[in-house]
């Protein structure tokens, strides 16, 4: 039984751009799915549709049951610059009027899980790019999401920071059994993280190919991982 099913979803922006034409896919609970495609293929639009921030022009987004608690992580950390790491991580709890002490405890625990113990009172400007992204993920996890939508979250980070965050994200998502929809334009990243990669065509975006990847932890250095990458790359690079 899938968590959410998109059927023939189309979206045109007010400036006339047809972002998505006929987008259909289903996401199973607990799955880690990457949406992989070139810039401007409508990946981000698909995420915002699933988040309910915008409505489709046509087609259907069907939830199996109520929409689950959803977290969103953007390409930029998008922290509140006037608030420290703990207050930023507490955002969803504050908005839901969770008592301050309880909110602090949950937010501090989330920061600790992201390796930021001791940085609770640090202001965003005092943190590195990778640490800011960790606060952003802690903010999402503090709300105890069942579904996590991530929009090229690590695209602006260096390779080493990105690899560490990839590992941590995978571990945390597995631990909490969170369903993740991960938008990226990186072959390596999608191959490393995903149970399934949905390769999208250039605008207007549709799913061109679906690649189911072997389960289990990958070894970045292994030839087997090289194979997986090659499979994903082939699907992405074929001319339309």
């Amino acid at each position: 039984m899938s968590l959410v099913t998109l059927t023939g979803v189309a979206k045109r922006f007010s400036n006339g751009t047809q972002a998505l034409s006929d987008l259909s896919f289903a996401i199973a609970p607990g799955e880690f799915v990457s949406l992989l495609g070139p810039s401007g293929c409508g990946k981000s639009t698909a995420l915002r549709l699933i988040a309910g921030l915008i409505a489709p022009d046509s087609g259907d987004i069907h939830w199996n049951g109520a929409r689950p608690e959803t977290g969103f992580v953007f390409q930029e950390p998008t922290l509140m610059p006037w608030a420290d790491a703990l207050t930023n991580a507490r955002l969803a709890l504050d908005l839901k009027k969770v008592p301050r002490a309880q909110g602090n405890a949950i937010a501090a625990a989330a920061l600790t899980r992201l390796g930021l113990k001791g940085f609770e009172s640090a202001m965003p400007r005092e943190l590195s790019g990778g640490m800011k992204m960790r606060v952003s993920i802690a903010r999402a996890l503090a709300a105890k999401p069942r579904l996590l939508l991530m929009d090229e979250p690590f695209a602006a980070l260096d390779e080493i920071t990105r690899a560490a965050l990839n590992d941590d994200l995978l571990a945390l998502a597995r631990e909490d059994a969170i369903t993740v929809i991960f938008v990226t334009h990186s072959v390596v990243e999608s191959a490393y993280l995903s149970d399934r990669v949905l390769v999208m065509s250039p605008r207007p975006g549709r799913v061109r190919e679906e690649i189911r990847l072997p389960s289990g932890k990958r070894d970045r250095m292994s030839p087997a991982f090289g194979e997986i990458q090659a499979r994903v790359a082939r699907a992405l690079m074929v001319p339309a």
Partner: protein
Amino acid sequence: MTRAFNIVLPLLLGAALLGLWEWIVAVKEIPPYVLPAPSAIAAAFTGNFSSLMASLLATLSITLQAFLAALIAGVTVAILFGQSRLVERALYPYAVILQVTPVVAIAPLILIWVGFDHINTALVLIASLVAFFPILSNTTLGLKSADRNLLELMQLYGASRWQILWRLQMPTALPYLLGACRIAGGLALIGAVVAEFVAGSGTATGLAWRIIEAGNRLQIATMFAALGLLALLGVAIFASLSAVEYWLLRRWHESALQRQS
């Protein structure tokens, strides 16, 4: 070292210019009703100290009341604009008309409407009209400058309009508002002076009135003393508002951050 230098250098220059001024007035025998020597101005200042201080307090009081009124009204209207495009479209042209019409031209009308019995209210109203617009326009801009993604994230978490206003839009607008306050503080003083000028003699007792009065009596030294106090008041208002701005923004805003060394 450089910090002390930055303070000492202008002071030295000022002292040198005052000395030059004193010397020229003495050597050229310039009459005191044209240009009084700094020593004569100082004498006028100490001679009229208590009455000048009373006038200073009167002008300061009008300025502060006008500034506060403009602050409250400006922020309130900006929040209304932020909540409703329709209200903004309908009201903004009138705010602009209020801004571009010279206050000297509106002041007599306000004096008549409010009445000379409530002269202080009239002065505050005139001065606040001048200070209102920068606060309104900057705060409106600030409220609109909230990060799109954060806004959407808060909506995703079910935030109310009120929560979005207090937790996102107001903090975003704060640096804009504080910048506007520095301008509006100076404008409120200008507005207070203009209002006192227009109100004319008798009921107004502020520094501007002292300047008119001293001018009418050819007490140019007293005029200079009042003028000097007015300038000092302006600098003090600017400095205090800058200090408030620094204090509120020091932990996070780029404008208040020390450069890494």
